[in-house]
């Protein structure tokens, strides 16, 4: 089993040592980085540090040097975001820091996405995402979308203030079977339940799996509304989507 000292990058070692507490997560993260090249570890380190300029440069250099785009995404960007996600969940960092890491990830994805789309790699599944009617907040939803895309899902982003009809139309139009709804306000959370009811009325509820999230949303509220899953953060959202797609 790989050990912490098998990871060459000192910053990554310190991050794991300081912030990854759960033994199962620690073992998984150490395993992830121990197999990554030093170049990928450097990309991950810059991402964790929120340094988008360095991620941009290192990713471009790696691609130019012939490193496979998938390797850069998995061993550099996604591996870095795995540490970011855990630090966020454990309240070691907050949304501004996560946003700066997301900005760094986007800077890397700019080089990778065109290569992956040209290669026509099969997606894990198709997800429709949107913030519910009356709610114009989208930071959490956008983080989830970024992580879902990074994990290999095709995501159709309906944006904010999404009506029940738009959710239903999008599911039908794109043939997606996973729906993600987000709400930041306690005043708009009930619109998640109304959307689920609209899917029941339209006779489509059994065709899709619905996940919900957002700062005030809880597992109890998700259960009460009849959602299939609740994700506390972007990592949980990806894990739910994989479970729904049978790829967990």
């Amino acid at each position: 089993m790989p050990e912490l000292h098998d990871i060459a990058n000192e910053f990554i070692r310190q991050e794991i040592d300081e912030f990854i507490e759960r033994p199962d997560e620690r073992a998984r993260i150490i395993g992830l980085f121990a197999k990554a090249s030093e170049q990928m570890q450097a990309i991950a380190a810059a991402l964790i540090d929120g340094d988008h300029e360095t991620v941009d440069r290192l990713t471009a250099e790696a691609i130019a040097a012939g490193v496979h785009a998938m390797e850069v995404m998995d061993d550099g960007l996604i591996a870095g975001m795995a540490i970011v996600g855990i630090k966020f969940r454990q309240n070691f960092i907050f949304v501004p820091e996560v946003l700066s890491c997301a900005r760094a990830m986007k800077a890397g994805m700019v080089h990778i996405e065109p290569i992956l789309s040209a290669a026509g790699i099969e997606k894990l599944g198709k997800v429709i995402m949107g913030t519910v009617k009356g709610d114009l907040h989208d930071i959490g939803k956008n983080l989830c979308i970024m992580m879902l895309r990074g994990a290999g899902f095709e995501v159709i982003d309906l944006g904010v203030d999404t009506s029940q009809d738009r959710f239903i139309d999008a599911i039908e139009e794109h043939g997606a079977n996973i729906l993600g709804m987000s709400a930041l306000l306690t005043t708009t959370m009930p619109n998640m339940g109304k959307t689920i009811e609209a899917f029941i009325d339209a006779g489509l509820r059994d065709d899709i799996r619905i996940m919900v999230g957002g700062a005030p949303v809880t597992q109890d509220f998700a259960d009460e509304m009849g959602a299939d899953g609740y994700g506390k953060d972007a990592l949980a959202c990806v894990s739910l989507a994989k479970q729904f797609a049978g790829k967990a």
Partner: protein
Amino acid sequence: MNSRQRVLAALNRQPVDRTPVCNPTSVATVELMDLVDAPFPNANREPERMARLAATSYTELGFDSIMPVFSIIQESSALGCKIQWEQKDNWPTVRMREPIWQTADDIRVPDDFLDHPDTRCVTEAIRLLRREYGNEVAIIGKTMGPWSLGYHCFGVEPFLLLSLDNPGQTKLCLDRMKEATIRFGLAQIEAGADALTLPDHATGDLVSAQYYARYLRDLHIEFAERLKVPIILHICGRTVDRMPYIAETGMAAFHYDSKNGPEESMAICRDRVALVGNINNPETLFSKGPEAVRAEVVRNLEAGVNLVGPECAIPLQTAIENLKEIPRAVRDWHNDRARIN
């Protein structure tokens, strides 16, 4: 004691005959809008309707306070933000994807800021309420803090990134935006507000306690000094980690969320800042029945929370019966205590 005396005494952590039931944020519902013919969006833009809907917290629900500012967008509208006014069943919202400012140099609080229809609506509504209800019920105004105005005027994501990338520029922005907070607050006091809610959403769901200390504590001290009525700071979400800082600001009260236990919150705030709250909105007031509401009220009372009420603006479809249960449960609890003693 009448309702006004009760609320003001509790905000000043003085003795009361019973715990007041207070709404520092909106308790407007669709049912109440129908009852008094004051639906959204009109009730957010016309002083008479705003006052009429607000008064139902006292006349229909039995609360000890009236709070006419149902949304968080009145002054943002006056600053120039684009507003989605919505309809009866939805809240007005700022279109934060279309920010009006990018840097501190862009910040302008217009000279006629207080004459804008959406700020004047609030001051007029407060005047009407004061005229109608005299000194029998506490009238609470609302002025948004600069952190929340930053989300509206710069966009949430750009503002939060700015706070990380350039702390100096962020402080400058906050310092310039505070003028809107103070001017709108003073205008409402002049119109007759007994107290002001000051929402400033530095919530634990978004930023750290250190952020609160770095960016907001000093500004909040300044607000408490310059706005000479009791100020009720409102921050949603988990906030226990920043309550020690909040308690140092001189704010009269903190309106706290159900993500914080009444006991742990009182342990920090007792004798330093009054607590208002924290009946859960989505899971209790909106989804459950009076019995669950009563249980949360009692838990707050047992913990010694100074004023009881919903944790935040309630969903518009909340049942009136659940809201009426709050004052009913407070009275019953005090009656039971009086009998035992």
